[in-house]
């Protein structure tokens, strides 16, 4: 119930789909509904499911389902890790804590149900694949279901399938080493073969799906292109294949001898590593992102991370080596992936997507860590005090799910009715004046939605590596306005303004900034720039719009 309430809150509050990516996705569905071709860069499943809903219920009902029903449905996508937790064979585990984390952790609330995006669907099938893989240790026939859900992950979301590929690869390498070094058991060999088949299915189906997507919009292809440009990559990969399983299996054997006092060290170290260190690094390298980093990392570092680490350590101590590898191998590879992606120029910003997968995967361990922590409290007073303190941490995890722009790098996620009208009218004006429309990614998505992707929108949505041709983006970066062409409509919203803690949203890998007062004064007072429309939250500007139109007449 809590999970559903949290996820439906922005929809009920704003009456519109929350987030702006959903407008971009829905615009593609509207084009598909017209029988036209459009690329589906994440994978086709999300789009075709939505298309089926649209065709079945009609446009108005489809929108209502999208806004008010789908957040509730997506809430159920958090369940696979809960069932994994229920399968723990330790008496101290309380699966309710895992469910609590899944329900309230900010990134999970946001990405699974808070905003309706293909990633939510991808996470569901990612989670199911992990669950079925785990069940395959009891009965190998569950691997068939893991293959099926793996295929659906491919169909759903490009980054999810990449994470699933890493998950199965890490298990394959680690269990292969374990098989060769410690336990030559037929059941394990069969499992290895099935994991290998699953990896092949993922690769083959990914290749097929890539052909359906716009190449320059598919994250996997872009990652692949970037990575293959690194000369030493084959060497790194080969070294990793040999060293990784050793680095996983042997330390787990060491961890089994770890002292019980790990709890104190964990709960002191984790806030330092999870909060102090990122904050310090952010202040040095990207001080403008400090409010965002603090907003998200403080709750996670205090309320989630210590219990997850404690849970991992204790799980490795108390469970079998085979069982410990199941969690340690993928988590370690996800961490390596994160460091690697940070180092890739232009791709380091993908790092903001990875924590969701890591947290989703690690929630059973966090729940387990919290369970153990609660069992170690030896008086009612301590239980009360700890319960109250950790309740506030849990609250902070939930309350940081939908940040305001000043805590979200200037991004205002909600879209208003007035901005929808602005986009509709901008499109109408663009047809009247035969003009292009210059606006940021946020309003561009809304523009694509209202125009069914027909609007002539300037901007670099798909051109990741070119300099920006957007006047708004350029002036937001330099702070200096310059003259723009006569056939461009500038669509400005208060969400882009510096005085409202806003930002001109550009592709995440490219520079952008807020519109300062100098730029606004230029638009308001430069001779020749008409202010065509005002919707209270935004305005349209254009140079000499009527002159050309009247001359044409």
């Amino acid at each position: 119930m809590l999970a559903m309430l949290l996820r439906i809150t922005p929809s009920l509050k704003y009456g519109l789909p929350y987030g702006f990516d959903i407008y971009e996705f829905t615009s593609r569905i509207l084009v598909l509904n017209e029988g036209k071709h459009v690329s589906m860069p994440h994978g086709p499943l999300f789009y075709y499911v939505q298309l089926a809903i649209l065709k079945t219920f009609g446009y108005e009902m489809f929108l209502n389902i999208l806004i008010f029903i789908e957040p509730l449905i997506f809430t159920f996508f958090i369940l696979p890790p809960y069932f994994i937790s229920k399968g723990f064979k330790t008496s101290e585990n309380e699966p309710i804590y895992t469910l609590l984390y899944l329900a309230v952790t900010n990134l999970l609330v946001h990405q699974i149900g808070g905003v309706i995006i293909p990633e939510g669907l991808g996470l569901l099938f990612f989670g199911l694949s992990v669950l079925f893989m785990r069940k395959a240790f009891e009965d190998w026939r569950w691997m068939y279901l893991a293959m099926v859900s793996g295929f659906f992950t491919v169909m759903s979301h490009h980054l999810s399938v990449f994470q699933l590929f890493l998950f199965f690869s890490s298990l394959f390498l680690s269990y292969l080493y374990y098989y060769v070094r410690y336990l030559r058991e037929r059941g394990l060999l069969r499992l290895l073969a099935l994991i290998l088949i699953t990896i092949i299915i993922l690769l083959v189906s990914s290749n097929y799906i890539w052909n359906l997507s716009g190449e320059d919009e598919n994250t996997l292809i872009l990652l692949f292109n970037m990575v293959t440009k690194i000369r030493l990559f084959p060497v790194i990969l080969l070294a990793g294949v040999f060293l990784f399983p050793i680095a996983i299996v042997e330390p787990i054997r060491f961890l089994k001898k770890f002292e019980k006092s790990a709890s104190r060290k964990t709960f002191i170290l984790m806030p330092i590593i999870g909060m102090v260190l990122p904050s310090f690094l952010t202040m040095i390298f990207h001080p403008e992102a400090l409010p965002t980093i603090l907003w998200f990392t403080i709750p996670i570092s205090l309320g989630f991370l210590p219990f997850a680490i404690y849970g991992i350590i204790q799980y490795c101590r108390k469970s079998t080596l085979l069982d410990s590898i199941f969690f340690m191998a993928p988590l370690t590879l996800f961490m390596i992936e994160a460091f690697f992606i940070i180092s890739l120029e232009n791709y380091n910003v993908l790092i903001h997507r990875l924590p969701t997968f890591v947290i989703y995967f690690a929630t059973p361990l966090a729940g387990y860590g919290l369970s153990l922590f609660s069992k170690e409290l030896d008086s009612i007073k301590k239980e009360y005090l700890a319960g109250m303190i950790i309740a506030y941490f849990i609250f902070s995890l939930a309350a940081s799910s939908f940040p305001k722009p000043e805590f979200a790098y200037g991004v205002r996620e909600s879209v208003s009715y007035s901005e929808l009208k602005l986009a509709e009218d901008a499109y109408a004006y663009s047809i009247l004046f035969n003009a292009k429309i210059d606006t940021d990614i946020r309003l561009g998505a809304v523009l694509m939605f209202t125009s069914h992707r027909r609007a002539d929108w300037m901007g670099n949505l798909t051109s990741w590596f070119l300099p920006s041709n957007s006047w708004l983006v350029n002036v937001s970066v330099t702070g200096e306005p310059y003259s723009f062409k006569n056939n461009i409509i500038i669509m400005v919203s208060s969400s882009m303004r510096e005085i409202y803690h806003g930002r001109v949203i550009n592709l995440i890998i490219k520079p952008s900034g807020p519109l300062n007062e100098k730029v606004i004064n230029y638009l308001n007072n430069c001779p020749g720039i008409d202010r065509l429309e005002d919707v209270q939250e935004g305005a349209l500007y254009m140079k000499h719009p009527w002159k050309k139109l009247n001359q044409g007449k």
Partner: protein
Amino acid sequence: MREDEVNGKGAFFKKTLLLMSSFLILLFIAYEFSESLPRGFVSMKIIGCEEDQQGVSINLSISNNSSRKSEGVLFIMLGYDDSTVCENNTFYSFTGFKVFNHSVIQILPREEKVIKIGLMPGFGVKRILAVYCLNPSFLSGTNSYDLIVIRKDEALWVQTWIG
């Protein structure tokens, strides 16, 4: 340690944690709803503009996209060389404008009203500006080069440059 003691361990913590965190989160959700802004809005746009020797004619459209009647004052202002529009996060200020005319406009819920404006601008006029003030009691006491300051949440304005 007795089994019943082991089984009871952490039970009070669990109840405290679940109840307290649920309570705080429900409070948070209630706060979020209390912060909801009205969804209705008024908008204004120029839908036509012609300039010839007879003067300038502008067609304005004001839409009331809310469920309440809108009553406000429409100012038509002439801007000269030294006219400027400034804004901060709360106010618009219009300096160096001459108020050509003002009238009270009422717009019913979901209604769009088209207003035709025809005028002979006169020498030195560089731009024509229309301000719709949503506060019907706002009236500028003068039509000369005064500073006009209007709250942003009560004002809509559009402009066109002439000549």
